[in-house]
């Protein structure tokens, strides 16, 4: 199924681009997500946990930045993952486009997603717009976290990002541990909880 989402970033497009393509720096803003391994400069392995009523799902998989066109401010990411307990799997092709927002100096990020869900989870929730609803919530919380982090960075308050400072190839990192350890100075929980 295909659907669209959008959010604003409080930076002009070229600078928003720098933030949004720094996957390791922003991954912790996605609620329930965990970046577990950096495969190469454009490929990542991770997990996303989702709770829907009585069901808790944990998808483990890979995400690859297939194209990254800085001049056009467009990026395409391909993701695939499967539930750890065999209840289904998902594939997604996600296109990001950055453009000046209505508010001067801000960027509007539009996201077009083409998601395929298979297995038992695909039938769960009677198929009523569940995926769009979950995607909308995740993106909303992600945007909120990202905005807060950008504003802190603009004020020069961002703490050193341990994980981004490390060499990226072949390194396995438990981001959750870092994230929890980083909650102190800002009092902010990047998971949005």
């Amino acid at each position, binding site marked *: 199924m295909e659907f669209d989402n959008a959010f604003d970033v409080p930076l002009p497009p070229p600078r928003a681009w720098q933030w949004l393509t720094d996957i390791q720096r922003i991954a912790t803003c996605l609620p329930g997500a965990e970046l577990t391994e950096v495969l190469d400069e454009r490929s990542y392995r991770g997990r996303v946990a989702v*709770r*829907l*009523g*009585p*069901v*808790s799902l944990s998808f483990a998989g890979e995400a690859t930045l297939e194209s990254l066109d800085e001049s056009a401010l467009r990026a395409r990411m391909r993701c695939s993952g499967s539930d750890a*307990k065999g*209840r289904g799997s998902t594939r997604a092709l996600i296109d990001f486009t950055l453009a000046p927002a209505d508010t001067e100096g801000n960027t509007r990020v539009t996201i077009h997603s083409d998601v395929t869900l298979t297995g*038992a*989870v695909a039938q*769960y*929730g*009677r*198929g*009523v*717009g*569940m995926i769009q*609803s*979950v995607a*909308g*919530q995740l993106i909303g919380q992600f945007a909120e976290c990202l905005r807060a982090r950008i504003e802190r960075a603009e004020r020069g308050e961002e703490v050193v990002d341990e994980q981004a400072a490390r060499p990226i190839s072949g390194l396995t990192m438990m981001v959750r541990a870092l994230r929890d350890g980083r909650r102190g100075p800002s009092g902010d929980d990047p998971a949005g*909880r």
Partner: protein
Amino acid sequence: MKPAPFQWHPASSLDEAVALLARYAPEDGRVIAGGQSLVPSMALRVALPAHLIDINGIASLARLEVEAGRLSIGACVRHAAFEHPVEPGVLGRLLATVAANIAHAPIRTRGTFCGSLANADPASEWCLVAATLGATLVAVSARGTREVAAADWFHGIMTTALAEDELLAEARLPLLATDARAGFHEFSRRAGDYALAMSLCTFRVVEGRMREARVGVGGVEPQPRRIPEAERLLEGERPEPETFARAARAAADAVDPLEDIRTRAAYRRDLVAASVRRSLQAACDDTH
């Protein structure tokens, strides 16, 4: 099918239940009261909780009483408890009307009011009641107790403000004014099936004019909500079919309906117009 193995933890007090939840929630420990949605999901092995914290033995959670102008509904109060008015006023009568639309009689003897709110299915009747009347939800955990307004409770399909270590211990509904009128209408393809659209309306009539109008719509968007565009068209107007039709049309225009393979957005929108018109008329006729 049968559920995957799990450990059952009967709790005899609220303190014990939240302590168990604090311990087991990180391992997908869940609270069970009626199990209306949890148990079928487990039987289908879509839900695979490792631990169930059973709150049915906690006497204080069976509480259902009126105090200080509101109805307090404990976590173990079943849908069936509302089939006969739980209080002599307009609210008790409304809840009895709504309860008759929830699934079937055997399910109503198990499923709970608070369980419906914690599950937050878009088609839940009690979620619509909570959103429209402005319920207060009491979430308890080992960390403490907090109250959440219904407006802040629903975050999307089957997603709420309730944290994984919190238990929804009680829901509080404000009583309706003695001269309030209330109407509810639900459309589903078969009796007891999930609502494709439903609405709940309340207003008072003062000197022939509608006041304090509330129009809530459920089963249409990811979560139930009030529709201010429709409420505005009622405020200060006479309770007449033409006015109801205008407000119903405004509600239909204001919603962003969910779609599925059998139900197009345009169809759900039409159902909203019909449902709101009928619940407004039902409220108009609700003169005791």
